[in-house]
């Protein structure tokens, strides 16, 4: 596979395997942490891209999740809290031949790093941002995060948190994101399918990955994993497919949003067919509101995937256009370019 997102990245010569992507560093998350599953999924996914390993870079901020780059046998940069999108932007904008992945957590991406995230999304540099959302601050031992539910009791909120969480999908769509998806740590197949589309997308892609922190927020996504509840709440979005799950279907609501109704109660044509490529983000936004109140219905998959030129691409084009017009810059010409005079 090789979508536009990888068009400028050199292809690997031989075949690569999972092992090629494992670094020699001992993995140090808590036993049982969802990060393990994601790491394994990514390591097993990378060979599929067929790009040179040395042209792959993982950039992260700070948090448990942000340790990720150490475990990938690629280039990596474990930076500072919240700033990975900014650092990755400079890297990707100046090196279109690299496949740049940002690894971040809900605190890293949405609390301290919120501004860089939303700007990266509107700017559309060729980045893949994987947001490990465990709805808690793991590394600092369990304070509530901007995705924690209201009333969350943590060390910093002994009487419960007061502020309404972000819905990362809604926020990203509101920030003009071209590619937005959600998946789950424990569903490797789905994770792979979403990563595949993200990598193929040229521009910034945001993938929210629900990740269990079994130490400080265990079971946050249990309803999506427990066979007893899973199927009744998981809404799998697939482009071009009607949005149906269990015995339910999704249709447009009169009031502007979307609603879940018993499948039998609607006509086939009424069922919403998912269009991830819709230039108007309104429907993707409406779908992101399906899980209100939280975990009644949780869409996963690609909400939105719309092509537009990536920032790095446009930047390169300007450089080329300027050079095409007046030739490559000459330092001597530049210095002598103003009003000069000679003294002899």
């Amino acid at each position, binding site marked *: 596979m090789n979508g536009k997102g990888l068009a400028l990245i050199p292809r690997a010569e031989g075949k690569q395997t999972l092992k090629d992507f494992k670094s020699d560093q001992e993995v140090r998350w808590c036993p049982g942490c969802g990060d393990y599953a994601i790491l394994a999924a990514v390591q097993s996914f990378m060979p599929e891209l067929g790009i040179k390993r040395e042209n792959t870079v993982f950039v992260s901020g700070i948090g448990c999740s942000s340790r990720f780059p150490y475990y990938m046998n690629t280039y990596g*940069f474990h930076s500072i809290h919240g700033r990975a999108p900014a650092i990755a932007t*400079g890297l990707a904008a100046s090196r279109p031949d690299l496949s740049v992945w940002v690894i971040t957590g809900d605190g890293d991406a949405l609390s301290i790093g919120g501004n860089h995230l939303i700007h990266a999304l509107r700017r559309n540099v060729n980045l893949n941002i994987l947001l490990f959302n465990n709805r808690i601050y793991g590394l600092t031992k369990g304070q509530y995060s901007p995705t924690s539910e209201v009333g969350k009791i943590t060390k910093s909120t002994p009487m419960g948190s007061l502020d309404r969480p972000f819905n990362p999908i809604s926020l990203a769509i509101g920030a003009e994101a071209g590619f937005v998806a959600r998946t789950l740590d424990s569903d490797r197949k789905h994770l792979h399918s979403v990563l595949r589309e993200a990598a193929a997308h040229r521009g910034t892609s945001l993938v929210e990955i629900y990740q269990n922190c079994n130490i400080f927020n265990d079971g946050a996504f249990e309803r999506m994993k427990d066979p007893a509840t899973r199927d009744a709440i998981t809404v799998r979005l697939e482009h071009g497919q009607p949005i149906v799950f269990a015995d339910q279907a999704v249709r447009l609501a009169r009031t502007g949003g979307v609603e879940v109704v018993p499948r039998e109660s609607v006509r086939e044509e009424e069922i919403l067919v998912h269009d991830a490529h819709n230039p108007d983000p309104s429907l993707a936004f409406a779908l992101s509101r399906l899980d209100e109140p939280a975990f009644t219905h949780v869409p996963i998959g690609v909400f939105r995937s719309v092509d537009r030129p990536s920032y790095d691409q446009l930047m390169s084009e300007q450089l080329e256009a300027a050079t095409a017009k007046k030739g490559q*810059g000459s330092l001597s010409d530049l210095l002598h370019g*103003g009003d000069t*005079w000679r*003294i002899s």
Partner: protein
Amino acid sequence: MTKQVQQLDRVIIRFAGDSGDGMQLTGDRFTAETAEFGNDLSTLPNFPAEIRAPAGTLPGVSSFQLHFADHDILTPGDAPNVLVAMNPAALKANLSDLPRGADIIANSDEFTKRNLAKVGYAESPLEDESLSEWRVHSVPLTSLTVKALEEFEISKKDAERAKNMFALGLLSWLYHRPVEATIKFIESKFAKKPDIAKSNVAAFNAGWNYGETTEAFSVSYEIKPAKLAPGVYRNISGNQALAYGLIAASVQSGLPLFLGSYPITPASDILHELSKHKRFGIRTFQAEDEIAGVGAALGAAFGGALGVTTTSGPGVALKAETVGLAVTTELPLIVVDVQRAGPSTGMPTKTEQTDLLMALYGRNGESPVPVVAPSTPSDCFDIAVEAARIALKYRTPVMLLSDGYLANGSEPWKLPEIEDLPDISVEFTTEPNGEDGTYLPFKRDTETLARPWAVPGTPGLEHRIGGIEKADGTGNISYDPNNHDLMVRLRQAKIDGIDVPDLEVDDPSGSARVLVLGWGSTYGPIAAAIRRVRRSGSEVAQAHLRHLNPFPKNIGEVLKSYDKVLLPEINLGQLALLLRARFLVDIISYNRVRGLPFKAEELAGVIQDVIDSE
């Protein structure tokens, strides 16, 4: 009527008017004519903080001062010989700087009741006795301009707006400036509006003719070209020189330049300038904030670019955490701080030298960075290349401290020969440097202590770096106490060991007992003051620091070889603190924090006092 022509060796003119009066443009043009004519010169623009403060008010006054001479000069001058005052506010705001006997050319048309009232003049100073100690030339600039443009098909407003060109014409006559280039300039500036172009040229000529024909001006002045070193010259401001220096560094290093920046006065013009030169492969990125600006530059540096970020004080504060990351990951990066008056927002359009200690210490942990500072507008070019040299050779962020005075001030610059520019090319690491073909990203060069630089895309050298403490050599995360102590000391030793040229001392007789030391933009005023002091018969030595960290190796010796060391700074004694701590020398500080450069006369007095108190 043949008019008298008088020879002068130097003149200081200040153009002052409302923000809308085009004084910066007028000053720029006069400067260009003067440069073309071959005088040495130095300029000081001064704009209000507001974009356009209400017309006619004191805060709305914009001015441009130009000092030009038949010999080399060092500053834009302390006190103008001529003030061009386009309105009462311009007169009032600038009068206190004007020595008695100076010329005032005032646009009498604007001295209306209303305008006078706006600035609290009860009566017109042009008509009462209050200006009797100056030589006042009342010229109805506006009406003369409008009259001269009667024949053109332009609005009255447009006609009135050309009055600055009339003034420029008059001054050009008064000082025998060449005019062709200005006429060409006007024509090309308004190429799309031929009527406006023609009328501005006409206004300019009318001004010239006014000088030539009326009796208001009986004398005109000649200032011979200066005997500067042979070469090709252009006039250049500090910000432009800095931008050119960065481009030169990119060319000389062979690395593409990546600028991550967020606009801020007085640094924005570097971003503006660099964004014009995409033909050099330069990528300019206007980030969402200062943190993203430096972050992107650092990311680009990780990718093998010459990463640069430009800002002013408040922006440096915001970038601190990321600069710390650059320190510990040992990646090259240039951080340009065009200092302005602080603390906090301070006075954004005013100059200051108050960020030195922040540059050195404004980060958590032991986080050493080299610091360099240019001494004149044109030195901004050289210092940019020097900053790049250090950053690339030692793999370290470098702080470059310019300031508002250098940034906007200009002077003639003798263009360097390209082949004389230093070769600062870099070799990326492409081969394993460890045993068994491994790559050790923190295995240092034994001489420079720099670590190797392998960029993404290099097969076999995949590695990870980050902000957590790293094991010596491998760069793996390490919490080992002794390793940390070692790394802290290695990072410090690397910076301490940077090769820096010796401090040069200007001590003609070799017998001066007082040394005047400076750094940054005080060079001009200090040197001018030294000249005065020497002229008056005293001996005094001068030295100027361009490298603030590490210091030149000989500095301790130099300091100790004088009885007294005087250090003027536009802060409360920041360099003095460093030198005192390092060399236990009782530096004499002279500090004024007025948002303005020192005046040569003021400093001459201070120096003389120090000499006399011996």
